């Protein structure tokens, strides 16, 4: 009984200490883990070009970081990013972007539909025990949905129909896809903005990857996530992350899968960029996160025959 009480007390203290109080920011660093702070403290950096500079000293590449993308290219960019840089000035942004005012984000005037949350590249992967199995995946919301792109195209009932092939691929209309994909605009009022954390850009990407790993996303999903978002998350020094999981996404964008013994794990990370150190003394359009996102994260313990895994990153834009 004493041991049980000690374990319960430990768990309670752990849970309580993972949350922060009002007037604090829940921050994360790969080395130090979580902390409750009132403002970020940057180390002094003697930058030549300090736009997005968050390293200790300017290396050769950083000196060129302020040049237009067509002139300067970072090493080890994926092939599509190297090509994209030649044609588009905003390749390293998730879409049309605006830095006006205090709320940098998607420039929504270029996109149809409605919804302040631009959910970009939700990709859906599959891990199945079946080498071949029919499935259908439907977006079942009664309201009109503001899709921006889908691959492959949805049918008139907002459904993908096809087969799971070789355990981990989709076949639709006789073509194999590594994943199903869509961009969509969603309403902000259905999202949660209390659970999450703030971190540097680099730590933000590391944290999201770690979060997906802990939810047992397959290796191809992690690889695609890292490759894509290393390029597409804009070079702001700090971000606050507000994860949306099944609880939030099933409410705003419900889906139905026609396959028995299936489970869908959903993750959408809403990112708010910050041009300078987040500080609780400065008013924010979206309050800083103070609660542990693990409290709203789905528990992934049971392995179903067919595990669908969805990840995406979202930015605000009005």
């Amino acid at each position, binding site marked *: 009984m004493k041991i049980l009480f000690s374990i319960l007390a430990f768990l309670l203290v752990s849970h309580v200490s993972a949350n922060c109080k009002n007037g604090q920011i829940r921050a994360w660093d790969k080395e130090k883990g979580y902390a409750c702070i009132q403002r970020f403290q940057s180390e002094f950096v003697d930058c030549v070009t300090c736009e997005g500079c968050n390293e200790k000293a300017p290396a050769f590449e950083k000196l060129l970081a302020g040049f237009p993308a067509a002139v300067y290219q970072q090493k080890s960019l994926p092939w599509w990013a190297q*090509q*994209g840089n030649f*044609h*588009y000035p905003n390749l390293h*942004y998730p879409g049309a972007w605006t830095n006006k005012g205090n709320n940098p984000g998607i420039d929504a005037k270029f996109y149809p539909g409605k919804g302040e949350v631009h959910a970009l590249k939700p990709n859906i992967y599959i891990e199945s025990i079946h080498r071949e199995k029919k499935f259908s995946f439907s977006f079942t919301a009664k309201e009109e949905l503001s899709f921006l792109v889908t691959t*492959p195209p949805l049918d008139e009932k907002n459904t993908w129909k096809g087969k799971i092939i070789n355990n981990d691929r989709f076949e639709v209309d*006789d*073509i194999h896809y*590594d994943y199903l994909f869509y961009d969509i605009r969603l309403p902000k009022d259905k999202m949660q903005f209390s659970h999450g954390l703030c971190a540097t850009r680099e730590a933000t990407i590391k944290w999201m990857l770690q979060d997906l790993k802990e939810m047992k996303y397959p290796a191809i999903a992690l690889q695609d996530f890292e490759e894509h978002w290393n390029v597409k998350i804009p070079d702001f020094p700090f971000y606050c992350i507000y994860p949306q999981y099944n609880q939030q996404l099933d409410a705003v964008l419900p889906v139905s899968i026609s396959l028995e013994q299936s489970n869908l794990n959903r993750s959408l990370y809403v990112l708010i960029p910050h041009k300078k150190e987040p500080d609780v003394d400065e008013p924010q359009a979206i309050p800083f996160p103070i609660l542990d996102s693990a409290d709203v994260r789905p528990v992934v313990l049971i392995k179903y025959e067919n595990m669908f895994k969805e990840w995406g990153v979202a930015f605000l834009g009005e």
Partner: protein
Amino acid sequence: MTSPKGCSKSAMIWIALDKDDYKDRLLLMHTEVPIGGSFQFYLKPGQYQVRASDENGCEFLQKIKVKDLVSTIQIKMVKK
């Protein structure tokens, strides 16, 4: 819409504003599509460029004019 025959590998499809000046040619969205595959995008009225490119440098460009309030355009990637 069907792509012209060309690329042999899966292609990245880029949708951007149709502007000659690099700095105005805003990229709106992009997606990777297997050869033979299809994708669907939704656009406001305006003039756009659809570019496809693959890892080997195969590339094609098509310009489209969207007139309706919200248009759904499907593109099927044709095999070489």
